[in-house]
């Protein structure tokens, strides 16, 4: 009661009445970027004789996950909930989600989910969400801007220095914000993953998890390491020392849409983004997409280069993805399970996977003709061979928020030393000194 009361109050004040109570037999909360997956799933469920669905469509962007966390902790969340995969373990550990092993075992399509993808959404050996797809990350670049700056196409940077040099050339050609490297809190998890982690993975040798946020062998968070310092140094070069971009690009009123527009207009030269960009640059799920040839004429992508330090990886990648989970309170609601299955039905999920340029985590969809025939999917599939996942254990969402605070500090003009110290202190506050390690 103690906690619930405060959380209910917090939810009520923070969301200012936006929380819609579940009036129908089954409710679903989802992120608007996934409309083209969820809406037809709901329609199929209703057409098959299901209950009326109370669909709560929320805007995408950095406020989605805090909103869901509040709803869950206040006990007002929907029956079926879309959840970013990084926070599934945390929610499961809080007792907010229902395990789905029985659902998978009793469903003829359960066997198609790839094991690695289910590991990401597992906690204490149980599966707590169904993954829609996964993704890979890369540097997108505007070809017009690159041509104007006299840079070679296709662009193939080998080190961080190459990226900075390209940025300087873009600056000279009038592209003031040469490189959008996500920083600060307005991108939410985007800063941690598209920006910080992609840089971090190439900052040092992968041996002993020296290029990660967590030492997975000992289960300790890394509070200070050469890789973290080099990554912050790179942020400092981009925004403070070489100033190839202005910090303000991370604080526009509508980060995702404003950035897409600025990038397509050539006002941003390089955009640290992911495989979804092939679709989402023109509006995720937007039916009026340009053809692939038109897209290829305008933008291209290259793999994120490593730092160039001895032993560091030549290219880096990290994968995430969104999932759909079942509220623990709806564990015994058969309608919620039916809705979940309707959304993940091979036909519905398969269509969305191809149209949204998502990397499937199901063997049946991977083997489908439509998926195999898509040229963009074929071009990004090789990246899957050398990717990794986030440290999706409970606590990662806290660490991620603190990582965002580190980048905020750099944009604020603080030194790498100060920023790392603040990060380390906050980690110790959170997890205790025994669970935080410094790598020399």
């Amino acid at each position: 009661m103690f906690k619930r009361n405060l959380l209910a109050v917090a939810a009520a004040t923070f969301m200012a009445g936006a929380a819609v109570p579940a009036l129908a037999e089954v409710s679903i909360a989802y992120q608007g970027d996934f409309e083209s997956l969820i809406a037809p799933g709901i329609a199929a469920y209703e057409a098959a004789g299901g209950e009326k669905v109370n669909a709560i469509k929320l805007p995408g962007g950095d406020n989605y996950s805090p909103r869901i966390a509040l709803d869950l902790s206040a006990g007002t969340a929907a029956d079926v909930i879309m959840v970013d995969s990084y926070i599934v373990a945390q929610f499961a550990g809080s007792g907010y989600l229902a395990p789905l092993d029985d659902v998978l075992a009793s469903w003829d399509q359960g066997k198609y989910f790839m094991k690695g993808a289910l590991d990401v959404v597992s906690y204490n050996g149980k599966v707590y969400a169904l993954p829609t797809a996964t993704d890979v990350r890369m540097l997108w670049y505007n070809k017009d801007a690159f041509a104007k700056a006299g840079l070679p196409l296709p662009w193939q940077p080998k080190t961080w220095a190459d990226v900075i040099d390209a940025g300087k050339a873009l600056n000279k050609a009038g592209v003031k914000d040469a490189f959008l490297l996500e920083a600060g809190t307005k991108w939410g998890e985007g800063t941690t993953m598209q920006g910080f982690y992609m840089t971090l993975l190439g900052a040092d040798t992968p041996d002993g998890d020296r290029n990660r946020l967590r030492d997975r062998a000992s289960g300790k968070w890394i509070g200070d390491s050469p890789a973290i310092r080099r990554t912050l140094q790179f942020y400092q070069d981009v925004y403070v020392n070489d100033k190839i971009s202005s910090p303000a690009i991370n604080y526009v009123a509508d980060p995702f849409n404003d950035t897409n527009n600025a990038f397509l207009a050539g006002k941003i030269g390089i955009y640290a983004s992911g495989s979804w960009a092939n679709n989402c640059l023109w509006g995720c799920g937007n039916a009026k997409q340009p053809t692939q040839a038109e897209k290829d004429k305008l933008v291209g992508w290259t793999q994120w280069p490593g730092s160039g330090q001895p032993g560091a990886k030549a290219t880096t990648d990290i994968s995430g993805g969104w999932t759909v989970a079942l509220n623990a309170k709806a564990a015994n609601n058969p309608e919620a399970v039916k809705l979940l299955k309707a959304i993940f039905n091979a036909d519905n999920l398969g269509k969305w996977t191809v149209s949204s340029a998502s990397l499937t985590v199901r063997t049946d969809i991977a083997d489908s003709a439509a998926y195999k025939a898509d040229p963009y999917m074929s071009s990004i599939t090789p990246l899957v061979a050398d990717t990794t996942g986030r440290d999706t254990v409970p606590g990662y969402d806290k660490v991620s928020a603190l990582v965002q605070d580190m980048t905020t500090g750099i944009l604020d003009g603080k030194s790498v030393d100060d920023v790392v110290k603040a990060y380390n202190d906050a980690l110790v506050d959170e997890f205790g000194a025994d669970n935080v390690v410094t790598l020399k």
Partner: protein
Amino acid sequence: MNNQIGPWLAAARGPMLVAMLPAAVCILATLYLAGWAVVFSFTNLELTGARSINWAWVGFDNYVRLFTREGFLNSLWVTSVFTLFSAIIGQTIFGFGLAVALRGNRSVLRNIVEVSIMLGWLLPDIVAAFMWSNTTSATGLINNAVLAPLGLQPINFIDQYALPVVIVANIWKGTAWSYLLFSAALDSVSREIIEAARMDGATPFQGIRMIVLPMVRAHLVTNLLLVTIWTFGYFALIFALTGGGPGRRTEVLSILMVHQSFEVGKLGYGSAIAIAMMLIVGLLALAYLRQLKEPK
């Protein structure tokens, strides 16, 4: 002391008690909610994860961290600058100045001015934020309509002048309130007194300083009290416009509180920030209320 109540009030005791119910509900709700925040500020409760279930009492740790961890002191400074310049100086002086300038003016100009400042007040914060974002961005209205035609380099105002931009935006947004309050107050100052002062040789400035200001003193203090309270905890416009950035340059206390409570998920620490804010605003309000008392 006079403990007698009027016979009319005594007869109406029943209805009076009923009429007090809404006030009682409001007061109880406030105490209840603030009480939870106080309690939680002494715990390490979190939004999700292990500490959302197994929280513990941590004494004054959260309050100590207000001063030993970065964030709070910076935000306190930013909030103070924001409140001083946008509310106490900006809205109050602009509102008073406009009220004085337009007093007795029945022209179309007055209508135009009133409609424009009222629009700012009535516009939802989020809409206003997008408007100001579009006005001050590198490709925004000011650059395209003013600086570019003059042959000047475009300026990204949010990048270089983030705090001034949100201050100006808030002055624009809130001046209407001060203007309305002062207009009403000035209407209560009779024309004869001002005429008399002028006959005695007072300049217009002296007339305002020595006659008008003392007469509207209570309104002035009430206005300062209200705009200070509103501005000190103001959230939506700044959050939508800059999200607290670039860096932490516009990270006012309310944004820090939301960030720590709901993005980092430390409800205990966020509650401590909220309580600190409440204490500061409470002290400011007390100071203002003392000013409301008539000088002896």
